[in-house]
C-alpha cells in the first residue's frame, strides 16, 4: 500500500533531476541575482580581461550557455550554474541583455 504512494514521488524526483532538486527558490529580480555575478564579470557584466563580457548578451545566447554549463562545460561556471533554475536563469539573462554596451574608450 505504502509503496504505491512512494513510487510517483521517486519518479518526480528523477524527472526533476538532482540539479533541480535543491535549486534556489526566491527572488527573480535580475538586479538582485546579478549582484552575485558582477564580482567576477564586472560592473553590469562588463568584464575586463579573460572572464567573458556578458553585458548585452542576447537572452537566448545567455540561456544556451547556462544550459551548457549545467551539462558540465567550463572551468568554474559548471560549478555555479547548477544552483540556478530556469526562472533565475531567465531573470539573469534579461538583466544582462539589458545592460548597455560599454562606452568606447
Amino acid at each position, binding site marked *: 500500500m505504502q509503496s504505491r504512494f512512494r513510487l510517483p514521488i521517486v519518479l518526480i524526483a528523477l524527472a526533476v533531476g538532482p540539479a533541480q532538486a*535543491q535549486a534556489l527558490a526566491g527572488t527573480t529580480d535580475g538586479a*538582485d541575482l546579478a549582484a552575485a555575478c558582477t*564580482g*567576477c*564579470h564586472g560592473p553590469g557584466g562588463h568584464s575586463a*580581461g*579573460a572572464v567573458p563580457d556578458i553585458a548585452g548578451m542576447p537572452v537566448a545566447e545567455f540561456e544556451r550557455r547556462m544550459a551548457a554549463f549545467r551539462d558540465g562545460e567550463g572551468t*568554474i561556471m559548471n560549478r555555479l550554474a*547548477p544552483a540556478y533554475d530556469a526562472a533565475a536563469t531567465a531573470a539573469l539573462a534579461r538583466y544582462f541583455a539589458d545592460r548597455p554596451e560599454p562606452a568606447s574608450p
Partner: protein
Amino acid sequence: MSDGHDARRRALMRALAGTGLLAAAAPMPILGAQRGPRIVIAGGGFAGASCALALRRLAPAARVTLIDRQREFVTGPFCNTVVGGLNPAAAITQDHRGLAAAGVDVVHAEIEGVDPSARAAHLADGRRIAGDRLVVAPGIDFDYDALDGYGPEALDRVPAAWPGGAAALRRLHGQLQAMPEDGRVVLTVPDNPYRCPPGPYERASLIAHFLAEHKPRARVLLLDAKNHFSKEPLFRIGWDSRYPGRVEWRGRDDGARAMAIDVAGRRVHTVGGDEIAADVLNVIPPQRAGRLARDAGLADDAGWVPVNVHDFAAPGHEGVHVLGDAIRAEPMPKSAYSAHMQAQVCARAIAQALAGEPPGEAPLINACYSLIAPDYGISVTEVYRINGDRIAAVQQAGGTSALAAGPDTRRAESEYARSLYRNLVRDSFGSGAAPG
C-alpha cells in the same frame, strides 16, 4: 488651495522615496530643508567600498559617507604576487577616487571608535559623523596574545605581510632576495578562521616559484595549525608538478602549530617541541575582528562579530551592520569576494528598508582563485542561500577545479584570476589598478 498643494507634495514625496528620483529632485523647492537619509561606513576595504558603491546605485537619495584612515588600500588578493616578485605593490594598490566620483563622501581620517547606539563614528581629529545607518567594515587585527614572543615590534624582522601594506610586502620580498642560496623560508599558518583560507598556500607556491628561478637550492616549509587546508589536493598536485621537493607542509598532527616565535633568532617553537630555524620567517598570526568592532562591543568572546545573515545587521544594535572579514558568516570564507557579496546584500537590504519595500533574497556566491605559478591557476567556488537564520552552501553546486585538469585549464584559470581581480576591484572601488 495651499493645503491641497501640500497634500500633493507629500504624496509625491512618498511616491519618490527610494526610487532614485529624490536625488534628481533634490534641488527642487518641494524638498525644502529635508535631506535624504545618511549612511556612515567605517572602513574602506572591499566590504566598505562595495557597500558604498552599491548604495549609491540602489539608494541614490541617501547620503553615503565612507571613512578610512588610509588614502590607499593594498589588496589581499594578488598580494602574494608582490611577495613573489611578479608585480610591484602599485599594481594592487587601490584608492577611493572612484567612490568619490560616484558621489560617495570620502573622509580620510583616523577613526577613534564607533558608537553603535548613536550610529556614529568618532574621529581622532574630534569630528563625529552620525547617520541613520552605520556600516562597520573593520577587517581583521592580529591576535598577538595567541603567539608568544611575537608582536608589532617584530614585524620588520619577521613580517606578517597579511597583507599589511606595500612596505610589508616589499620587505618580505626583499628578505627572499637577500637569503642564502640554499636557505629555508618558513611560514607559520594559523588555525581557522582567518583572512583568506588558501592564501598561505598560494604564498608558499609563489615563493617557491621565485626560489626556483633565483635560489634553486632553497626550500619552503609550512608549519600549519590545521590538519587540512583549502584546495589542499590541488595545491599538492601543483607543488608536485611545478616545485618537486621544494615545498614541505607539516600539520597539527605533526605537532607543527607555532607556539612561540624567537624573533631575534628567526626560530619557531612548535607545539610538538621542535625548534625550527628559518632564513626568512613569515608569521601569519591568529586573527580576530578589527578593533573598531571589538571596542564597540560588537564581537563575541572569540573575537568575531555575529550578524543577522539577511541584512548583515548586528543583533541588538538597530541600524548597525557589520561586513567582511570581521564577521561570522560561515560557511562563507573570509575573502574579498565574500566581503563584496555581503556588501551587495547589505546595501540592497538598506535600500529596501529605506524605500519601505519587502526584502528579497537572492543566492550568494564566493569565488576564489589561487596562483600556483603565473600560468597555473586553481579555484574554489560556492553558492549559498539563506536557510532560516543561517547561510547554507547549495549542495549540488560549488567545489574546486578538476584535479585531473590539464595545462590549458590551469592557464585559463590563471587568466581568469587576473580578470577577476580587475572586475572585482572595478565593482568594489569603481576604478582601479591591475596586476599583470
